[in-house]
């Protein structure tokens, strides 16, 4: 984990509220499912913002983010050549080394981007990856998954693209050895319950408000079956059976 200065090489609007930023920085040590604390300001915002690694490449990192508040709005103003601060990689990431066989990645909304690096890593490890991507209305990042996935399932709430409804409607956990999920809590809860029913291992990547991002402030602690855990350090990825929601 390091505190780096990166340089923005691309910062592009993908949909109404989704942006993707490419940051050149050294060294890139991120693994699938990890995140960075980012800031593109000095002290105008007190805290850095946790954003997951969308894609990690030699000498650069990609982040995909939704503009929801002041911090992400400011990030959207970044231009090529601007500096950005990165603290990370933070968190545990998905345990890709331990995963074998057939895997389903189930993502919803801005829970989709973190699964992209995961798809790549697993595919390269010889795992068969299917992606289940649930959107509100407009798609993003789909083409980034394609190289790594065997089957891809898409849903939108009103059926603008792909299946009309929730992505969990399409999932059959019993077809998989492991299910990895990231997205809204309701979605992940549903996925976890479906997996539990079929005794399929399921990992969930949680969101929580964070201050330090590195385990020092206990601002992101949650109650789990093995006691209090820090989402930023002990997570963000947890075995679904550990969670108490």
């Amino acid at each position: 984990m390091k505190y780096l200065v990166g340089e923005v090489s691309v910062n592009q609007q993908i949909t109404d509220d989704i942006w993707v930023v490419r940051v050149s920085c050294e060294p890139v040590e991120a693994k699938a499912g990890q995140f960075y604390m980012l800031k593109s300001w000095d002290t105008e915002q007190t805290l850095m913002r946790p954003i997951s690694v969308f894609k990690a490449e030699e000498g650069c990192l990609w982040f995909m983010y939704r503009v929801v508040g002041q911090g992400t709005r400011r990030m959207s103003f970044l231009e090529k050549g601007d500096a950005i601060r990165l603290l990370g990689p933070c968190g545990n990431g998905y345990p890709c080394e331990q995963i074998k066989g057939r895997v389903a990645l189930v993502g919803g909304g801005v829970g989709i981007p973190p699964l992209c690096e995961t798809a790549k890593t697993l595919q390269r490890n010889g795992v068969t990856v299917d992606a289940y991507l649930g959107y509100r209305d407009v798609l993003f990042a789909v083409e980034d998954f394609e190289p790594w996935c065997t089957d891809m399932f898409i849903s939108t709430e009103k059926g603008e693209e792909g299946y009309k409804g929730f992505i969990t409607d399409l999932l059959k956990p019993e077809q998989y050895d492991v299910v990895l999920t990231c997205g809204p809590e309701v979605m992940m809860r549903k996925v976890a319950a479906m997996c539990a029913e079929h005794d399929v291992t399921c990992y969930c990547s949680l969101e929580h408000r964070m201050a330090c991002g590195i385990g020092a402030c206990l601002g992101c602690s949650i109650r789990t079956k093995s006691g209090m855990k820090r989402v930023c350090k002990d997570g963000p990825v947890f075995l679904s059976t550990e969670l108490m929601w």
Partner: protein
Amino acid sequence: MDNDVNLSVEVAGVPFKNPLIAASGTFGFGEEYHELYDVGCLGGICSKGLTLHPKDGNDGIRVWETASGMMNSVGLQNPGVEAFIETGIAQMRRFGNVLIANMGGHSMEDYVTGATMLSASDIDMLELNISCPNVKSGGMAFGIKAEVAEEVVRAVRKVCTKPLIVKLSPNAENIVEMALACERAGADALSLVNTFQAMAIDIRKRKPVFNNVYAGLSGAAIKPIALRMVHAVCKQVRVPVIGIGGIYTAEDVLEFIMAGAAAVQLGTVNFNNPLAGREVLDDLAQLCRREGITDINEIRGVC
């Protein structure tokens, strides 16, 4: 390069190589930030807030950003005094700077037992956090009324063999009376301020953001109030005072020392800039040089 400016200070007989101390609750036991820089460069580190027994802390949202500040409702999650003595101290010892154990409590007995145990351990100083709600007095914090604080400090003083810092809450009814009461009761030093009781509402949910409704405000937003309190207290007490509250820069450090502080603590700034401790230290040496200050002790209390 640095030898031309003396930054070392003394607080209650304990020498610090510089006046910067990591504030309790914002720095863990130091090891996370030690991955980023040698935290031994700081004058000292306050442990996260300990209680006699382990605590899980509060449920729900625990941190929330505000204009130039943040609120927290961590609720003193900690492994308890015993576990700290067993493993935390050794972890903190290797940094080679002043080791301050910060301890809170919800009853007089907890404070006394905790202080007794910590006195027998290898800490350098004990910082008593009296902002905790007192279970016996219906949840009113120990740090609100001077009489209540005086009593708990007196009791802890009796058992405490370490230099004793009492950390004051800015929610005290009268911060100067509170300081004088704690001094009378035997505090070797005072530190102030802890967080301000504050509130945020989620207008979409039409509910308070925090399960506990109120939470503690910290960061740059509170600096001007914290500075006033430190100044007012320094004018009245004889014991050394450690300034805390929204200190982000070397300039802020000088302001607090000119107001009379013996040393300062850095809290929220660590979240804004994880290298803040080291950077403020570097800047401080430079700033002193620029301002013609050869010994940081020479400007203490000039205001």
